[in-house]
């Protein structure tokens, strides 16, 4: 038996810091992953008198209705949701060609009405299509005029600010939602 005490060799802990750093970076990165995303809406402020929509000329308004059975009615006729985007784009870019659609893009209005029984899923889809239509026409206009899609314009970047303003003036987002009316029933 060996009687002499042997020295325990020292464990090299030099790489421990690296491992810990790796973990640290991992946690730093993963904890920022949950960025909430959503469709941004600006609600109209509450007013005493609801705006009179009948003053608007009928041709300027694209009427979109979603009923309790999640059926889509555009300008009085049934439509599948995948055609809504194109229809809205046509409406916004009509510039007076079709007498049933908007005379100019600045006057064009999209009016969205839904029933209390409409499912939220359907509503978000419709809203998404309408937003997509606005984004499409704005992108196209900006691309033709400035050679850069609207979504790539940076609101923090000084030369882009005027461009954004111009595109917004050309295609103002007039997406009106009807004041909720109780029609009875569910």
């Amino acid at each position, binding site marked *: 038996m060996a009687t002499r005490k042997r020295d325990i060799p020292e464990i090299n802990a030099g790489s421990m810091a690296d491992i810990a750093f790796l973990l640290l970076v991992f946690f730093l990165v993963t*904890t920022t992953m949950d960025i909430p995303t959503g469709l941004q*809406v600006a609600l109209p*402020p509450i007013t005493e008198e609801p705006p009179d929509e009948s003053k608007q000329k009928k041709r300027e308004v694209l009427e979109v209705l979603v009923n309790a059975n999640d059926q889509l009615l555009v300008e009085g006729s049934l439509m599948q949701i995948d055609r809504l985007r194109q229809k809205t784009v046509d409406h916004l870019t009509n510039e007076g060609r079709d007498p049933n659609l908007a005379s100019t893009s600045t006057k064009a209005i999209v009016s969205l009405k*839904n029933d209390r029984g*409409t499912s939220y899923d359907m509503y*978000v889809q419709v809203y998404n299509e309408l937003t997509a239509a606005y984004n499409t026409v704005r992108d196209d206009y900006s691309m033709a005029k400035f050679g850069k899609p609207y979504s790539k314009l940076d609101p923090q970047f000084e030369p882009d600010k005027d461009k954004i303003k111009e595109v917004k003036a050309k295609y103002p987002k007039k997406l009106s939602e009807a004041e909720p009316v109780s029609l009875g029933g569910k």
Partner: protein
Amino acid sequence: MAKFKKDGGRSLPAINTSALPDIVFMLLFFFMVATKMRDKEMKVRTQLPQASEVEKLEKKSRLHYIFVGPPLDDRLGSTPRIQLDDAFATVDDIQQYITLKNSEKDEKEIPYMTTSLKADKVVKMGIVTDIKQELRQVNALKLSYTASKSID
């Protein structure tokens, strides 16, 4: 010009780095604990709808959350309920909730506060419309229909 020291002079003592891992571990634990999602305990199911035109919500500190969905607890039935913070609420509580939450914020921030509505797919628009009306009453006009990004 100064002369360089000759070799064999006093050598610099090595810096003791044995405490470095401890420091880094301390940082690690700090981040692990501090960044732990202090998410509310969900009482309702929110299976989000999908949309292609979603935008990122920039600042988490500028968000109010409203959850709507059928309760996770089956015993409470399947009628969609509203959850504010950690508790069930009714539509009438929303105004008070937003006002309370706003009072905790800096006054300058209030116009930028966005309400993130997390509603389940099956929720009917009736309840959503009611919530929107309540939000308009308290002038919380920025709303976000929280949806997950769909692959178009």
